[in-house]
């Protein structure tokens, strides 16, 4: 199940990083942290996945929000291959660097 999270998080970054670069923001570093919650009964599928984006650099908040939205709504293949009943939560932090 950890691999599903790495696949999802990798997919998020694969799109968000180039989108931010195209926006010509000063992106120094980026990472995502994901936590999954499973349902109690078998098959123990994901019930909820919480993603925290952490971007380092001089990045305007609205640009980051837009990049995340585009990634999630339009591009991320892994996200759209997952069960729609999984509750997805996204948060972000911008760290000046």
């Amino acid at each position, binding site marked *: *199940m*950890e*691999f*599903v*999270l*790495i*696949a*999802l*998080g*990798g*997919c*998020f*970054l*694969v799109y968000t*990083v*180039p989108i931010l670069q195209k926006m010509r923001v000063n992106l120094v*570093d*980026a*990472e*995502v*942290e*994901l*936590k*999954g*919650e*499973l349902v109690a009964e*078998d*098959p*123990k*599928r*994901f019930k909820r996945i919480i993603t925290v984006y952490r971007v380092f650099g001089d990045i305007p908040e609205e640009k980051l929000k837009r990049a995340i939205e585009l990634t999630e709504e*339009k*591009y*991320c*293949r*892994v*996200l*759209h*291959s*997952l*069960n*729609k009943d*999984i509750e997805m939560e996204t948060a972000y932090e911008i760290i000046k660097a």
Partner: protein
Amino acid sequence: MPKAKIKWVGEGLGFLGEVETGAPLALRGGKEGGPSPMELLLIAIAGCSGMDVISILEKMKLKVRRFEVEIEGERASDHPKRYKKIELLYRVYGKGIPEERVNHAIELSQEKYCGALASLREDIEIKSRFEIIEED
């Protein structure tokens, strides 16, 4: 509860996936590196179901020598290019492995146990088959 952290490494589209135990996993965003995120999703599914099947077959006290799962996905042509169809091929090597046992183990994994498979979109078509190869 499962957790993971993915870091962007370097100028290109290289990523490192970290989990609590085990070595970090290199992901491919561009042309070089490990599996792409979509390939990794296939590995997650094949690994999850494969682990179920082998542990069920072992509980049945069957003489499995080797075991492997091959997985292939077909994507939609429009963005987001999600999976439309996933095909699994389970290959069991061993002596006197009854077909109905393998079939039952696969059914149990797919219907009851495999959390990664149950986390997929419901309209992805899942196809599976198996081969039993007689081996001493």
